């Protein structure tokens, strides 16, 4: 009897999980489906989900009109560049905060997080002026720097949480065995924190890939990534939903695939230390 209830409960949970999962995924699925419709079908009411004339015409148009691969390459360089640069800065910072905390470490951590609370548009003009004066407008280097700075608090916080889970005794032991500070971080700490570092890396690549304020405002033609590519298909006067959907699908596909393949790693990293 007890077993029957638990099976029923399990089935209930599974169904609920599937419903929630599908509800979250539905907008993306709908975008993908719309990208294979004609513009007329994209706005038809009631909308059809499967029974329409599937066409790849929108993809052909989008590829003809825009230089997709230039935007794609810019996105790759900007998101990977900013994440790697961020990790290089954040690993030593998180190490020191986790293992040799000072009196104000907690305050420093909170202060770092507070920079995320400022609306970005508040500092748009000063940053724009600085970029103009040092010639970083519309360059990949400029975007790598800005995105690194924006995501740095999150990277440091994530790494700090992971590092806190690593027993300090192991590091002490390595020190006893004569490891230098450099050896300690590179050969002892980093290998143990690989799952945490990997999930931080993945999450930040996703955040940088999707960042749409700075990437739109600091670029023009040369360094514009896929966010600018999507924005070029949005129109307040004219119905181009199918083409916009095709552009969106092409922009999110790489990151969606990356997320799909690395979901175990991501979940593991995000729940690291959650259950003792």
């Amino acid at each position, binding site marked *: 009897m007890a077993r029957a209830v638990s099976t029923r409960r399990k089935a209930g949970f599974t169904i609920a999980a599937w419903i929630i999962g599908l509800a979250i995924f539905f907008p993306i699925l709908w975008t993908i489906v719309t990208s294979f419709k004609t*513009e*007329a079908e994209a*706005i*038809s*009411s009631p909308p059809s989900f499967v029974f329409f004339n599937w066409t790849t015409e929108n993809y052909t148009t989008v590829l003809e*009109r*825009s230089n997709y691969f230039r935007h794609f390459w810019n996105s790759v360089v900007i998101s990977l560049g900013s994440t790697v640069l961020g990790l290089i800065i954040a690993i030593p910072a998180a190490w020191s905060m986790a293992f040799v905390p000072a009196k104000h470490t907690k305050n420093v951590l909170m202060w770092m997080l507070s920079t995320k609370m400022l609306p970005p548009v508040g500092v*748009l*003009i000063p940053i*724009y*002026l600085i970029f*103009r004066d040092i010639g970083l*407008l*519309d360059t990949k280097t400029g975007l790598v720097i800005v995105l690194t700075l924006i995501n740095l608090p999150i990277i440091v916080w994530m790494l700090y949480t992971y590092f806190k889970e690593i027993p300090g005794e192991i590091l002490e032991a390595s020190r006893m065995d004569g490891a230098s500070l450099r050896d300690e971080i590179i050969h002892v700490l980093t290998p143990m924190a690989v799952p945490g570092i990997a999930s931080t890396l993945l999450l930040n690549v996703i955040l940088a890939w999707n960042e749409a304020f700075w990437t*739109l*405002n600091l670029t*023009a*033609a*040369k360094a*514009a990534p896929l966010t*600018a590519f999507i*924005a*070029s*298909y*949005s*129109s*307040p*006067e*004219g*119905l*181009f939903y199918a083409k916009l959907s095709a552009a969106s699908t092409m922009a999110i596909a790489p990151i969606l695939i990356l997320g799909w393949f690395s979901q175990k790693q991501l979940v593991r990293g995000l729940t690291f230390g959650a259950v003792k």
Partner: protein
Amino acid sequence: MTNVTRALMGATALCGMAAIAQAETLTIATVNNGDMIRMQELASDFTEQHPDIELDWVTLEENVLRQRVTTDIATKGGQYDVMTIGTYEVPIWANQGWLVPLDDLPEDYDKDDILPAIAGGLSVDGTLYAAPFYGESSMVMYRTDLIEEAGLEMPDAPTWDFIKEAAAAMTDKENEVYGICLRGKAGWGENMAFLTAMSNSYGARWFDENWTPQFDSPEWKAALDDYLMLLNEYGPPGSANNGFNENLALFQQGKCGMWIDATVAASFVTGDDSTVADKVGFALAPDNGLGKRGNWLWAWSLGIPAGTDAEDAAKTFVAWATSKEYAELVAENEGWANVPPGTRTSLYENQEYLDAAPFAQMTLESINAADPNNPTVDPVPYTGVQFVAIPEFQGIATAVGQQMSAALAGQMSAEEALEAAQNLTSQEMQAAGYGQ
């Protein structure tokens, strides 16, 4: 010594040749609409004529583009050589000295051919600061079959009373046919563009000559009451969320009896994607017999930011894209119906165009019926028909638009919306130092 001199001279010549061979690159910021995309496709004609000029395009959604180019021009960022801007930006930017005056375009450009209303909207003190790429006004688009069934005949210049009567007669909610579709979505370029133009025909105005807001006037009350009544009684459900695109979709699917919106919609509702393409008629925007109609005026135009290092090349491009020859190029490749409308008198004297575009005459009359320098019944201190050409307007009108949209959604009464609009506009204008 002679050898050295010779070598130096040779090197100088080489440098000179390299400079000539090195193409100048123009970065052009545009919006995403059919006409602008067509310009990009046809730009090879320009680069063939001018092999020394290369074109880099930045296409963005209208609001993103506005934010982007405003940041750049205000900080003299120098990212763009040609910017697509509207009639709202041109007078403000020209007064700031941010735009290059276009008073030395080539003779064959024929500046006098530009429609006077459009040229007026893009000039400051008689000097043109941006060249119009396409112009639009607003007009009534209606279903000829439905109005006939209702036993009515749409006049070329209807009154608001007739619109109310026709909306009531055409509404058939059981079959999802709504007498009238209008913009309800909050935004200075959405519901406030329509409401501001509508209020002009009711004798209302945003400000009196001392910059005092006028939302407490009986004229605004009358305009808003009629707007709310039309949409609540005869409009589609959820009108408070409908902008241009939503109404376009409704009209194309045969769910609107009438739609008062941009003239540029005419080619969409009679195009391939429309299920009612052969049943659409056009009329001027309505009036109340006060001498002003409820239509607006807008022109997407090409302006050159002051301080660009490619001013001459930019002027050459702007002259090409807004010339009569460009219209012919489009006609040759895509047909006359696809020529950007609303900028030149000569286009409306071209019989081939008039034959290809059944909405041409009404578009022209609508544009001519708008006067951005004298938009209201009573005098005002500002220019602009559906907007007030001051930098503060975007923010104020978006906030006012939210009140109007809330009134439409039934969250507040018309009186409350107008009172809130009056208060917030007064506060903002005082803070900005107007009327002091």
